[in-house]
């Protein structure tokens, strides 16, 4: 089985956005960059499938991004068990999801993967789009927001989260899954494996190599806007908790008018 894992490097979840007023640009220079947390579930799932199926299963991490993404690729993909990586080098850093999906489609079609794993969402743009678009463009089945995945030969049974429950989806490979927390517990890389990861093959590609033009965007971000400032918190000062609770109930009813 040939497995592709599509990964992205994102600012870590502690990142603070310093934006005083609406602006056409966002300063991203001070961000600490990490593997997108949902992509760690995708990487782990691929490795577990390889461990189950044996060595003729090959796991390739695919990433579109600049040189700096290689740190995450080495530490969080190759060092934990991906066999190789492909990096598409065109400048597509803040490209929209469909542009990314079109480039990934060219890679997936060239190499013919049986299984493609993505994160359910990148925690910077919060799009939740790329994986599903890639499945559509590759004419594959997909299941999004997967918390459980089983294979029986080429047939899969995937469980995905929906409001108030779950959906169990069945189908056959080739297929794409977007991974959600709960699917597995990603392993951590060991120091020796991080050292060895440097020796695993990394293929560098451009859109031109893939025989496509750099896809054009259908959307444009015109403005970045800081969240509306909240007023001061009104602290209910009352030594007696029961009285404070009554006061709060009254404020919610009469001032906020929400209960």
């Amino acid at each position, binding site marked *: 089985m040939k497995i592709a894992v599509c990964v992205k490097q994102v600012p870590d979840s502690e990142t603070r956005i310093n934006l005083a007023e609406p602006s056409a640009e966002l300063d991203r220079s001070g961000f600490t960059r990490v593997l997108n947390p949902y992509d760690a579930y995708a990487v782990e799932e691929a490795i577990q499938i390889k461990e189950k199926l044996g060595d003729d299963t090959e796991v390739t991490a695919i990433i579109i991004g600049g040189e700096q993404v290689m740190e995450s690729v080495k530490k969080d993909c190759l060092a934990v068990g991906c066999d190789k990586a492909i990096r598409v080098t065109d400048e597509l850093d803040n490209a929209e999801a469909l542009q990314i999906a079109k480039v990934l489609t060219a890679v997936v079609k060239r190499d013919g993967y049986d299984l493609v794993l993505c994160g359910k969402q990148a925690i910077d743009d919060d799009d939740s789009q790329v994986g599903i678009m890639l499945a559509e463009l590759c004419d594959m089945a997909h299941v999004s*927001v997967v918390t459980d995945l089983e294979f029986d030969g080429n047939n899969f049974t995937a469980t995905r989260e929906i409001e108030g429950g779950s959906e169990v989806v069945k189908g056959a490979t080739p297929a794409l899954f977007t991974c959600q927390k709960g699917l597995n517990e990603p392993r951590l890389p060991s120091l020796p494996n991080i050292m060895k990861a440097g020796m695993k093959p990394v293929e560098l590609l451009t859109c031109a190599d893939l025989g496509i033009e750099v896809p054009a965007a259908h959307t*444009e971000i015109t403005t970045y806007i800081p969240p509306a400032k909240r007023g001061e918190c*009104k602290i209910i000062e009352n030594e007696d908790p029961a009285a404070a609770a009554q006061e709060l109930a009254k404020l919610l009813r009469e001032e906020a008018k929400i209960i």
Partner: protein
Amino acid sequence: MPNIAVFIEQRDGEAKKVAWQMINHARKITDASGGEVWGVFLGKDAGNNAADAGSWGAHKLFTAIDENLAGYNSELYTTAVASFCSANNPDLVLMGATAMGKDLAPRLAARMDCACVSDSIDVNFDNGFTIRRPVFAGKCYTDVNIKSNTAVVGIRPNSFNLDQPGSDSATAETFDPGIGGVTPKATVAEVKATSGGAIELTEADVIVSGGRGIKEADNYKMIEELAGVLNAGTGASRAIVDAGWVDHSHQVGQTGKTVSPNLYIACGISGAIQHLAGMSSSKCIVAINKDSNAPIFKAATYGIVADLFDVVPALKEAIQSLD
């Protein structure tokens, strides 16, 4: 003169409230700028939806009625909505940013090769559409302009208020979903409900959440009891989900659910940046925490600095005794 199509999501025949919120908002745009609002309904029978869609402001309701569209199937629904779009050319297709809408929108936009904007909170029209949406888990917002002829836009539930319904009915039309020859590559074999009757957080008007301050799993009952009197959903911080005290479906935050209720009550939650990411767009936030320096108070509208074991049961009683 924009024509705006609104996908009316149904489960077991019942339409989601977010559909009416979108229709209501779309109608304000077309009243100001011309054009029409079209409801698009897929299912095994049309039910009352023409009357309902009309009362919220839709000019027309387009239905595709087919046994195979009774429940959600990503490929069949994509084909059906794409068929509708190629026959009617809407300028915008709105759908709820729900489990279904988030799954359908990207597949549809990829098929139509058009703009796709997820999880948005506002839509404006002025010489073209501008969509506002949070990024970085709500630490920042963006305004997005659409450059393609049509666009698929997901709308976060509760982003638009619902006005009073009118008495109009939408003109009922049907369309061919074009699914005749399509054999989907994946199918939904089963839909399981995890918690009978529990209020879904992403749709809830009120949420009561508990964090590590509740001290042990059993005390989550206290959160549930307060939620009970408010008809609220119950949320949780990641700390108590990871501890196994409550199921992940309750987790609010960057790696949990993003919620925007009218009222969010955080009990024994410190207010870590990843938790705030999931709930800071709530209209009113109440923090109950014994540490007056907890960051949650920076996000809160009202705060009580005290032991939650005293305050939470007292609040339940105080709310019950409001008339």
